[in-house]
């Protein structure tokens, strides 16, 4: 299977499809009605020279829209999770659990914490969805 470039429009499309394919997310995400922005901070030494954002319109167990946007635009979402590129890569490769990452301050969260905690299962399943995408990472090119 051809690999999809990380944080590209094709990646956003594949991510949306994986989420909408997940019965677990459909159940765990019931009641979620906020936008989520993922801010991927630049790491020039990892061949990721400019920050990027992922905008996620998630509603009631469904991904209505996922797009790659600027980091600034992602930062305007209801919930924003920020981390350097290599941390996101760890998450996508199952090396860092997002819940643990947030507890350790490796992933920075902006937004109502109790709401995120209520949807822990949904966020874990979203991470699972990224691991099911065959991704080409820029520092491995």
């Amino acid at each position, binding site marked *: 299977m051809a690999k999809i470039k990380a944080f590209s429009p094709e990646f956003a499309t594949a991510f949306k499809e994986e989420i909408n394919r997940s019965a677990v997310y459909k159940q765990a995400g019931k009641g979620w009605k906020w936008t989520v922005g993922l801010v991927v901070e630049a790491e020039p030494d990892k061949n990721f020279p400019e920050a990027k954002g992922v905008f996620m319109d998630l509603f009631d167990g469904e991904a209505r829209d996922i797009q790659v946007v600027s980091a600034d635009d992602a930062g305007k979402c209801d919930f924003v999770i920020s981390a350097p590129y290599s941390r996101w890569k760890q998450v996508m490769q199952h090396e860092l659990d997002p*819940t*643990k990452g947030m*507890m*350790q301050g490796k992933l920075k*969260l902006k937004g109502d914490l*109790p709401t995120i*905690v*209520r949807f*822990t299962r949904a966020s874990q399943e979203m991470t699972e969805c990224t691991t099911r995408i065959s991704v080409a990472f820029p520092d491995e090119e």
Partner: protein
Amino acid sequence: MLGGLIEANVQGRPEKRRDFDTLKARVGIKVEDIEEAVTLDFRGGRLLVSNGLKRDRRITIRTDADTVMMLSNLAIGPFGMPVYFDTVGRGIVGKLVTGGLKIDGMLANLATLNQVTRVFSVR
């Protein structure tokens, strides 16, 4: 994160605020799989959060990060009692039985533990 969670929980939730305002206890939480520990010093309406486990704790919870999240999702039932018979509650009981969750000082401080649970829970 845990201090922020309690702060957000207490804001705008009068029933949690009442617990928070009367809670006086030093509680330690050791998250063993990420090797992080925190001491929550409840001082009747104020909370001091310190890294590491401080001395003279009344209750110490030792578990993994996922179980901390489960504790935060424990439903609160009638009379402010935590609900241990739904999916999350049964999961917590299972962790207690199998040693995945250890609570030092639990039996001697049940009322305080329930109060901490109510303040900590997002439900």
